[in-house]
Every structure is written in structure tokens, then in C-alpha cells.
């Protein structure tokens, strides 16, 4: 492969993914219900129209979650990297707040997909 070909390929991939990221980040969920999962199991389902603060307690640590003005974010966490706190608000349908050390995932509720229906 020549230099030119490689540059073209990688530039295309680069912009394709940036465009994809922009498109995906603009899709909003149908209903504003968030699901908090701990280690793959549903911990709590919350309606974002009601302001609330609660603490997710796991075997590894705690995450303080706050719901304010139709948005959900992690206020405080016991983990060392604090990536979930720095992530900020859940801002689109495919977004998720992840705390890897505590295995906590916060995401919007999605309609049950084909797999879930078949599994029933």
C-alpha cells in the first residue's frame, strides 16, 4: 500500500467516526427514565422529572447520584479515578455513566429489544 492510500483510508475512518459520534450524540431518548445497574443487575429505575438524590451502595464502594432539572449525574464517588463524576450529565440516548471500579452503570431505559422478547 502506498503512503497516499493509507492517509486516505485513515482520514476517511477518522471523519466517519467523528460524524457518527456527532449524529449519535444528538439523539434524545423517547422517555426520560434512567436505569441504574450494579454488576449487570438492575439496581434502581428513576424518573428524571422528579428531583432526587440517592446513594448507590455496592460491595466495592458508593456513588452518590443526583437528579436535577431532567438530568442525572454522579455527584460523589468513592472510586479513585472519579471518571463517573467527571462524565457529568447523561446527555443522549446512547450515553452511559460508567463507574468501572464499582461496576455501576447509569443509562436511559430502552425499549425491550428482540433478544429480550425471545428470552421471555
Amino acid at each position, binding site marked *: *500500500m*502506498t*503512503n497516499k492510500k*493509507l492517509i486516505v483510508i*485513515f482520514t476517511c*475512518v*477518522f471523519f466517519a*467516526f*467523528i460524524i*457518527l*459520534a456527532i449524529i*449519535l450524540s444528538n439523539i434524545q431518548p423517547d422517555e426520560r427514565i434512567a436505569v441504574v*445497574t450494579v*454488576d*449487570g443487575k438492575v439496581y434502581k429505575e428513576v424518573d428524571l422529572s422528579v428531583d432526587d438524590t440517592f446513594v448507590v451502595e455496592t460491595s466495592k464502594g458508593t456513588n452518590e447520584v443526583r437528579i436535577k432539572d431532567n438530568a442525572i449525574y454522579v455527584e460523589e464517588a468513592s472510586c479513585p*479515578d472519579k*471518571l463517573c463524576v*467527571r*462524565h*457529568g450529565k447523561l446527555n443522549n440516548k*446512547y*450515553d*452511559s455513566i*460508567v463507574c*468501572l471500579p464499582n*461496576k455501576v*452503570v447509569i*443509562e436511559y431505559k430502552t425499549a425491550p429489544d428482540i433478544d429480550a422478547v425471545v428470552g421471555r
Partner: protein
Amino acid sequence: MKLKKMMHISILSGLSLIIYVIESQIPPIVPVAGVKLGLANAVTLYAKVTMGARSALLVLLMKIFLGNLFTGTAVSLFYSLCGGILCFMAEIIMFRLVDDIKQMWAVSITGAIFHNIGQVIAATVLMGTDKIMWYLTVLIPVGIITGTFTGLVATYTLRAMTNKR
């Protein structure tokens, strides 16, 4: 001969280990898990060119196991292994596709992309959610930038080292 090779492998392992440990101490610039420079990959690339694939794999595995022993946990070892091995395989294939060693940046970019894919797969398996796939739309462009940089580092190091001999 064999001793010389062993020495080379251990020196390069040590080097990539130092880079890996120092890099993990730098706080993340963007709030997305998994975004980092991956400079240790330059050492792996250098090892592949100077000593062949088998030695490079040894350097890589040494870095992953010892690096996670020093800085990480058992879980992060799984992430590193998934990313590292997929990255290495992609790089070996890419080395055959490029026709000049100066195109190492392309090899490095491919490696960076597949390293991200491997880590996202590991996260999907561990967390039980496929929503993490969304991260790839951010991680791949970032990987292309950091991969170019790492590849250039490897190219220039190689050039400097071979000129000296």
C-alpha cells in the same frame, strides 16, 4: 547470541514497563475512560522490527503482566490482555500490508484502533452492557491521533538507533 537476545528483550520490557507505569500516573485529560497516549506501544513496534514478532510478543506480555502487577488490579489485567493481544495481531497483519518501514505510523494506528476495540469488547463482557460500544465512536478518532504519534516515535527511534550502529 541467545544471551544477547534475552538481554535485548529484558531491556525493552523494562523500558516499556517504565513508560506504562509513568503514563498510568498521568491523570486523564478527557473524561472518557481509556484515552491515553499508549507510548509503550512504540517499544513493542521497535521490538518487532529489530527482533521479530516472537520477541515483541514477549515484550508486550511482560509489560502487561508486570505493569498491571505494579499499577492495576486483576480486572485491569483482563482489559490490558484483551486490548494488547488484539492490537498485536492487528499490527502483525498490518506489517505485511505496508511496503516500507517508514509507514510504521499506519501500523501503529491500526494497533491503536484494535486496542480500543479489544478493551471495549472486554468491557462489554465484564459489564454486561453493549452500550459501551458507543465509546468506540470517540475512542477510534482519538486512537488515530495518538497512534500516528506513537508510530512516528517508533520510526524516529528506529532511525536514530540504526544510524548509530
